[in-house]
């Protein structure tokens, strides 16, 4: 039996990256962004950490100053894009259906269409999830990860792969820091263990605290 098996079966040595399709597409997107001088930013966090609220405030702050388009990933609804349009954003929802993350081809479909190439900034709100988006490069230049004070300080240790990738980590909802058990030193320590190179900005979309620093980073990055 085994002999026969051995004769029939052959081994294919492959050594290919499983996600190479996404990676290739992401590189094409990256090239497109570069040649159009569009700074693309992939914004990730758990659901409810304040991504859409931050984008609302960012839209208002940059109106008339910078050309911004926003893509929002969500499983089903158009709610976030509607919220953003209400404050005057050029925003489009990408429904991922069952998909728990955006991928590079979803972004590619928007290039030369919704994303014209005249933008200074393309802000991409990923699906609320700290696991899946970490495996899917979109071709962005920067990754921003939000951590709200209501989520506790341990999140970076529980989701190290995503937090490790962040260029910027925004500690959001700091207006609530005094009302919840939030220990800033422990949070900073957790971030440092996973990603010592990340820039950390403390921010509140509600009070506007930290917005200047965020906008400054957007301008310089």
């Amino acid at each position, binding site marked *: 039996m085994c002999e026969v*098996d051995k004769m*029939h*079966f*052959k*081994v*294919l*040595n*492959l*050594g*290919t*990256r*499983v*996600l190479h*399709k996404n990676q290739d597409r992401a590189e094409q997107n990256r090239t497109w962004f570069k040649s159009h001088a569009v700074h693309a930013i992939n914004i990730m966090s758990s659901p409810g950490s304040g991504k859409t609220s931050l984008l609302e405030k960012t839209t208002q702050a940059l109106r008339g100053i910078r050309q911004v388009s926003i893509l929002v990933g969500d499983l089903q609804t158009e709610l976030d894009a509607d919220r953003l349009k209400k404050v005057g954003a050029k925003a489009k929802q990408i429904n991922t259906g*069952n*998909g*728990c*993350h955006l991928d590079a081809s979803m972004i590619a479909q928007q290039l030369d269409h919704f994303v014209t190439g005249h933008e200074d900034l393309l802000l991409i709100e990923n699906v609320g999830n700290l*696991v*899946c988006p*970490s*495996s*899917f490069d979109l071709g962005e230049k920067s990754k921003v990860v939000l951590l709200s004070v209501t989520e506790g300080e341990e999140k970076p*240790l529980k989701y*190290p*792969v*995503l937090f*490790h990738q962040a260029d910027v980590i925004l500690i959001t909802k700091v207006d609530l820091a005094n009302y919840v058990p939030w220990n800033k030193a422990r949070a900073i320590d957790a971030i*440092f*263990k*996973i*990603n*010592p190179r990340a820039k950390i900005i403390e921010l509140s979309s509600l009070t506007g605290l930290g917005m200047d620093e965020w906008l400054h980073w957007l301008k310089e990055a």
Partner: protein
Amino acid sequence: MHELSISISLVEQALAIMQKEGDKRARRMTLEVGAFSGISIEALHFCFPEATKGTALENCHLIIKQIPLCIYCPTCKKEVILKDPFIMCSHCHEVQVEVIRGKEFNLLSMEVE
């Protein structure tokens, strides 16, 4: 859980390879998955059989080689394997280290006929 969509794309890739090679059936597939790849091996084992149903990969045995997270510490001047996913040298606590292994997610080989 992205392991289902990943499994589906893995099966598609494998089927394309088999079609090119003219193979009808796959008996074994070997992957390497890094501890810092963001891919859950457990979830992959769970989702892969689902994704193969009704294809030439049905009943294909999935073998996964785990690759530990490994950094290079410029202070100790050596490679260090990390048990925890904290990107710092476990000997000297240097944080300016380079991840050299552990992010892999590769299809290594298949046994087909």
